[in-house]
């Protein structure tokens, strides 16, 4: 009965038997619990990007990725199996399953992607500040492998966030007449440059996600005493 009542408000994709969805949600839950139970906010001047500036922003960052067009393609295909693949023979039971697309209440949240984008842009400078802290925490300029890893992470996150489809629309996609507006040529150039990065948004989405997890594991490895960091240069 309760399930029937819920089916009025929840899309059928969430209510049908779906081991991939259960696996994804379980993995997410275990990760989130691990972040709180085994926090590793800072070690030897390295700040874990998951805790920067505070782990409390993590839900919003998660929502940015969940509403991202790149991941929407992936979870609609591989978790909800709408469709499981483009070849028509692979679909099997598509026709018999209910489908609401992005119109059901819960998926309408995807239209708010731009607000999570704004927050993500605000958070980007913190990752560069973390690099600065890692370089100077000992009172002198200390260049270590970990600082370079943090910098690569910051650059990947920046490229991922700034290549967003919503940003593409906001900075120029919604304009139809550049020659009618002030600085039209410049704005079109910015739009074109961003569009080039936008074409690589999916790669950047996955690369930045994998790398931020790698950074977290790297720092935990360091904290556990693994000899995986060394200094390149020290300046007093």
């Amino acid at each position: 009965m309760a399930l029937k009542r819920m089916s009025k408000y929840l899309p059928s994709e969430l209510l049908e038997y779906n081991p991939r969805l259960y696996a994804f949600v379980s993995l997410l839950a275990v990760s989130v619990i691990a972040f709180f139970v085994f926090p590793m906010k800072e070690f030897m001047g390295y700040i874990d990007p998951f805790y920067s500036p505070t782990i409390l922003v993590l839900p919003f960052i998660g929502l940015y990725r969940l509403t991202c067009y790149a991941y929407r393609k992936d979870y609609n295909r591989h978790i909800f199996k709408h469709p499981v693949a483009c070849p028509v023979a692979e679909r099997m039971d598509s026709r018999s399953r209910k489908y609401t697309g992005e119109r059901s209440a819960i998926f309408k949240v995807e239209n708010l992607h731009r607000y999570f984008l704004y927050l993500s842009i605000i958070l980007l400078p913190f990752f560069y500040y973390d690099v600065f802290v890692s370089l100077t925490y000992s009172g002198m300029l200390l260049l270590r492998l970990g600082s370079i890893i943090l910098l690569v992470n910051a650059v990947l996150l920046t490229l991922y966030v700034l290549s967003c489809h919503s940003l593409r629309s906001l900075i120029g996609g919604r304009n139809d007449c550049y020659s009618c507006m002030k600085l039209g040529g410049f704005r079109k150039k910015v739009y074109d440059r961003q569009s080039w990065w936008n074409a690589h948004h999916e790669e950047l989405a996955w690369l930045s996600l994998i790398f931020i997890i790698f950074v977290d594991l790297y720092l935990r490895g360091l904290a556990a005493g693994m000899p995986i960091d060394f200094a390149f240069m020290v300046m007093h």
Partner: protein
Amino acid sequence: MHDNAIKLRVFRKGPGDKGPGRYDEFKVPLEEGMSVLDAVNYAVENLDSTISVRWNCKAAHCGSCAAEVNNYPRLMCKTRIEDLGPVVTVHPMGAFPLVKDLVTDLSGNFEIDGKIKEFRPKEGLGEPWIMHDIDVGRAQEFRKCIECFLCMDVCHVVRDHGTKYVGPRRVIKAAALDMHPMDTIDRSVSLTKDGGLGLCNVTKCCQEVCPEHISITDNAIIPEKERAADKLYDPVLMLVDKLKALGKGEEDGTKKNE
């Protein structure tokens, strides 16, 4: 590797035939550079002249020979036999009503055209219209469309769910008009409310199968979804647009009419 011949399986069903149809098998000698359309034509000319197949240019320009080759929507003329296995199965596009064998009725696609609001130019424009490269470049990509309707065939929303979604081909048309610098209408809201744009879940199959390599999802569907979000889901932008319209200052390049 192929030997000297391939096994060609062609879907057969006539207008009066009942049941799901059948596959007829033909042994077709392999030639260098042979396309799937060449193999089907060989079968028509030498083995069974009753096979119905639609084709015209043999150069991937007319879109007539669209079909499902080994379950993947492709142009038969653009698909090389050597890229496929020793068995090649050809099926008509399953999203459309069957006429006979490999021929489908595509007229429904053109009926959907009526759902897209027509081009409405700005008032008081002197002739000839002067347009600039920076304004027309984006929409030119959509002019490459040859209307093969492979994107409509592969779209799981159109094919599997029988919804009111107008489909990728029509979203391209709406986007081309919306991005036109002389046009005055924004079609994204009507596309969302009446055209079922929200049913598209951006899985990009249409983009994958497009023989003209048009970035259908990235450059047409997502921009239209974002424009609709501007007008339906973004209170901040809605307020900014209202204030701009009140101020009637610098033209901001976005359209205001629905």
